[in-house]
């Protein structure tokens, strides 16, 4: 890629990357939180205990703001396939269009029909249907994740296609395309990671209230459910899904694996660097401290096996940003390992009944919630930077994919617009969710609502007089 700052291809790539990373901050919480809502609503129906309903009402409001930002930032993603990546849409639209269209028909209609009812419609729907709405939203959001992951898996590991007479791709076998093994593994990996985000956020709010001595019952509920899901999901991210993902990359994208680890020279008993900076110009890892055999084990299941090095392949098939890929991958596995340890310890303390009184641990849990967001982001950066320089791996290069008709003026203008608009959205989101969390879930909101209602009626009366 020509990374000159007036190259429209660079700005199309920047814009897609920026809007995508930003967008995905929201769906990961949506997908993670949705099943908490389903679970609590189910408990409320089964036990009749009002505390579960309170949890649902509180989290549904947080969910609502998060969902809204997810929706509005999601629509530009689909459209950018056409606006900025016309070359790629022309080439592969006949294949990936299937899942982009299915996502709309099967996932978005489902979640958008029920989300309003889930957040505001408890009175309109009644308890049973309110539960149904929660299930609908959760299913819809996960289906949406599935279709997007199938689309991405095709870019990583294209199968189920045929090459048409004009050189473009067309769908050949829909079943093979939808059941791409890459997609299935990625689905487990990615959805577990979304649950990690959801559970860390739930846990953090529980820790916050516990430390402040507020909303005791609710806080205990959040901590218990949050640490349990957090532990299970963190484990699932690593085994079996992360492990399988690494083996998949070793088999189908050996160049990517070498670049992720900064391995320029191949060898047996290949290690994973704990410390070391890739020096691409000199083709080596500076001051490496490695865990010997770890990469061989990750890639092939034995410590002695051979792992390919970058120098075995032509340089024009190397990922074009090896440094960023290396750091993304390392940050992801480091954070993932810390999540397992932290949640295992927290669950253990909870099981002994000592979590509520362990101030240190509560502080850590409260402050830990941003890290799953970082881990999810660098995980996706590993996947997408590792795919370079291809848009469809081995078939179609990134530099052929962008819209040739766009001028750098057009793209820089829209990048500026997106950055500005998304900054405002971010401030707004943090303010509204922060406010929601500060108000809390407790019973006093009911009294507050009544007071507000009277205040409103008063206000409108005054206006009539004016």
């Amino acid at each position: 890629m020509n990374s000159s700052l007036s190259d429209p291809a660079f700005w199309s790539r920047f814009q897609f990357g920026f809007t995508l990373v930003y967008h995905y901050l929201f769906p990961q919480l949506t997908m993670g939180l949705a099943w908490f809502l389903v679970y609590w609503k189910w408990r409320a129906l089964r036990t009749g205990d009002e505390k579960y309903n309170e949890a649902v009402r509180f989290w549904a409001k947080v969910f609502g703001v998060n969902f809204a930002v997810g929706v509005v930032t999601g629509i530009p993603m689909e459209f950018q396939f056409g606006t900025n990546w016309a070359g790629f849409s022309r080439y592969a639209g006949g294949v990936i269009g299937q899942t982009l269209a299915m996502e709309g028909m099967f996932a978005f209609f489902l979640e958008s029909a029920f989300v309003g009812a889930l957040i505001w419609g408890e009175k309109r729907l009644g308890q049973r249907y309110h539960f149904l709405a929660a299930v609908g939203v959760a299913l819809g959001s996960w289906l949406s994740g599935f279709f997007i992951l199938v689309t991405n898996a095709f870019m990583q590991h294209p199968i189920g296609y045929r090459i048409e007479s004009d050189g473009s791709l067309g769908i050949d076998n829909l079943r093979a395309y939808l059941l791409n093994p890459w997609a299935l593994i990625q689905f487990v990996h990615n959805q577990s990671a979304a649950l990690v985000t959801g559970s860390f956020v739930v846990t953090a709010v529980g820790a916050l209230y516990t430390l402040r001595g507020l909303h005791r019952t609710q806080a205990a509920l959040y901590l218990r459910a949050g640490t349990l899901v957090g532990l299970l999901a963190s484990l699932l991210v690593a085994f079996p899904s992360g492990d399988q993902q690494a083996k998949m990359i070793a088999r189908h994208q050996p160049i990517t694996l070498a670049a992720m680890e900064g391995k320029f020279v191949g060898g047996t008993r290949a290690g994973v660097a704990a410390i070391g900076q890739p020096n691409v110009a000199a083709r080596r890892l500076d001051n490496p401290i490695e865990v010997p055999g770890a990469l061989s084990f990750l890639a092939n299941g034995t410590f002695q096996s051979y792992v390919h090095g970058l120098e075995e392949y032509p340089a024009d098939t190397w990922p074009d940003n090896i440094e960023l890929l290396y750091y993304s991958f390392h940050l992801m596995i480091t954070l993932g390992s810390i999540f397992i340890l932290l949640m295992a310890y927290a669950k253990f303390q909870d099981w002994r009944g000592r979590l509520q009184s362990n101030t240190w641990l509560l502080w850590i849990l409260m402050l830990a919630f941003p890290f799953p967001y970082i881990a999810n982001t660098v995980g996706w950066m590993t996947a997408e930077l590792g795919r370079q320089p291809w848009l469809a791996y081995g078939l179609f290069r990134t530099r052929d994919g962008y819209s040739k008709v766009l001028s750098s003026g057009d793209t820089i203008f829209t990048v500026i617009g997106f950055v500005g608009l998304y900054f405002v959205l971010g401030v707004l989101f943090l303010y509204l969710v922060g406010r929601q969390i500060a108000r809390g879930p407790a019973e006093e909101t009911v009294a507050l609502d009544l007071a507000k209602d009277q205040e409103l009626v008063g206000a409108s009366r005054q206006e009539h007089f004016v």
Partner: protein
Amino acid sequence: MIAIWYAVVSFMLIAYVILDGRNFGAGMLHWFVARTPEERRQVIAAMGPLWSWHEVWLVGFGGALVAVFPRLMASAFSGYYLALILILWCLILRGVSIEVGGHINDRLWQGFWYFVFVSSNFLLAILFGAAAGNVARGVPLDGDGNFSMPFFTDFGVRGHVGLLDWYTVSVAVFAVDLLAAHGATYLALKTEGPVHDRSTRCAKYLWVAIVPLFVLISVESFFVRPDVPGRAVHNPVCWFGLLVTLISAAMLISGFSTRREMRAFLASNFLIVGLLATGGAAIFPVMLHSTLAPENSLSAYAIAANHTALVVASIWWPIGFALAIAYFIFISRRYVGKVSVKRDNQGFY
């Protein structure tokens, strides 16, 4: 098969226009029909919990376009770059203003978001209207099926055209009036009290204004695309579309004069369906007309995805569609009748 998929894709776009069009209309008229805070909440509540479901039709349309006509999506979306990105920004602002406006019970906060709400809906109606005008007029497609358009060039309708010219601007004005009338008709159905009375009055004026505007853009269209009417008279769908439009117009008049709001609103929907179906059928099979050379135009037959794609999509699409309608009916049945600010507070607390 390709003709059927042309119809399906058009159907999804038309469904989007009638569903979200009412929200554009209600949004544009927000300031005129609702004055007190309570009345304004009524308008938002009338848009209901389903506005994002309405927006999904646009996403579904985009998805179907990539699946079935990938080359059209590539050419059109990159060519309409600036207009489309502006539409995306307006959709973002509109969605945010609906969702967050009600979060804080404060005069300044709500005033600000109402302003964003009204202006983004207004801009969306203009942009979609201009886009429709562009599809009818054609775009400067080159021999490779590419084009790029600035916002405007010399405001002419031949050769190297821009997004805005005298024709597309008048289509945009027509679209604003049509969607405003549609939204007012919807508000008349869903609200009560002063909002209802003002909406009814607005709707009548706006529908009357449609008549001269419709005559104007019809005459203009004959001038801009003299090649279309000759083909269109042989297309039964065009005649059917015109028939639907005429019947709906009669229904609309009877609905308003007998105060049957449901009838008026249904008529308003069918009227838009009829108009768009006529237009869509008239330009078929050319999906994007070239203002530079007719042989550069993109025809549905030349740009469709392969046969397998059309076949598999024909299997899953009806299932998805049936499910979508089922969810819609399920939710709508729980929100029938006039809105109540107390019950459907949409976050106003």
